[in-house]
């Protein structure tokens, strides 16, 4: 019987974070550019990344801020969007094993984004690493540093940085829908298709009939209610989690 590998180090976490960091940097850069284009200052753009640290929610925050949505409505929308993160901790700890220490989880769990969760779970599942809190710190700090530096550079470059590069500007403009679609694919399961269809259909209908903000709220509520009513139930077990 083979011995389990020794608990992975902070450096192993940093190495595991490398692909995430490479992907995060351009997305964060586009957020910084979009934020300054939306009228936010460099400190405000950086502050959103520093405090919220949730890419899709940050992009949506820009739309809500520039759309003049009330703070509490915006907060509710963004918080509702991030509720999915409650599923990540239990899934990760279950994979880590019963003896996993979580004494400092209050710190490293701040960085438990979709991609960090996916990378940690994948590395643990492949047996390449063994859960440890230093490993989680390396993983989360590597990704967080990339997100913050990308945001800062994008915000310093400013909203007009890409005026001479329309194709790059267009590509960065599609970054948000692409991120949402990829996240959607990562949590997709057959049982959730009715929830997704109802949420998407309601969003289109209410947006066309009323407004974009109302469409977002109505879509989320309709999708969640349809799940409570049992339209998104698995026949056995849960759907897979985000990566």
């Amino acid at each position, binding site marked *: 019987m083979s011995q389990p590998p020794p608990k992975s180090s902070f450096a192993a976490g940093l190495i595991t974070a490398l692909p995430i960091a490479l992907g995060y940097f351009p997305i964060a850069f586009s957020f910084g550019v979009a934020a300054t284009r939306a009228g936010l200052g460099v400190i405000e753009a950086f502050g959103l990344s520093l405090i919220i640290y949730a890419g899709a929610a940050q992009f949506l925050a820009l739309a809500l801020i520039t759309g003049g949505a009330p703070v509490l409505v915006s907060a509710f929308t963004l918080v509702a969007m991030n509720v999915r993160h409650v599923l990540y901790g239990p899934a990760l700890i279950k994979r880590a094993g019963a003896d996993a220490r979580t004494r400092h989880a209050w710190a490293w769990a701040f960085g438990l984004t979709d991609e960090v969760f996916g990378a940690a779970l994948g590395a643990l599942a492949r047996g390449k690493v063994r859960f440890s809190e230093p490993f989680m710190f390396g993983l989360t700090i590597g990704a967080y540093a990339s997100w913050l530096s990308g945001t800062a550079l994008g915000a310093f470059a400013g909203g007009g940085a890409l005026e001479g590069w329309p194709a790059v500007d267009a590509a960065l403009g599609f970054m948000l829908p*692409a991120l*949402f679609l990829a996240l959607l694919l990562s949590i997709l399961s057959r049982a959730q298709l009715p929830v997704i269809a109802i949420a998407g259909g309601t969003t289109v209908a209410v947006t066309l009939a009323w407004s974009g903000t109302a469409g977002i709220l109505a879509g989320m509520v309709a999708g969640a209610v349809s799940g409570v009513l049992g339209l998104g139930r698995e026949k056995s077990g849960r759907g897979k989690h985000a*990566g």
Partner: protein
Amino acid sequence: MRAEILTLALIVGACTWAFRYFPTKANLSAIAPDGLLSRFLAATGPAAIATLFVASALPMLGGGAKLPLVCGVAAVVAVYAITRSVVGATLAGSAAYGLVVWLAAATG
């Protein structure tokens, strides 16, 4: 930093941290698998992300050229299907979208 932006960031940041941290300590097996809370948790994430994808892509259907959107979506789906990487699929979709825009400008 404007007070309303700081307030928004602190509320969302605190809740997001709570969503990420507290479940690492909680025994979610106590939640009934078929209970209302369990169903709500299971449905909220997909509902939110589906809503936001539609809301962010919808304005792009309003313009004349839809080819970049189609190619961008196809690239996201294809790369995700191959790599199972959210980051990789996002970057591929964005690159495909920009490439089609660039080709359209160069040839048109």
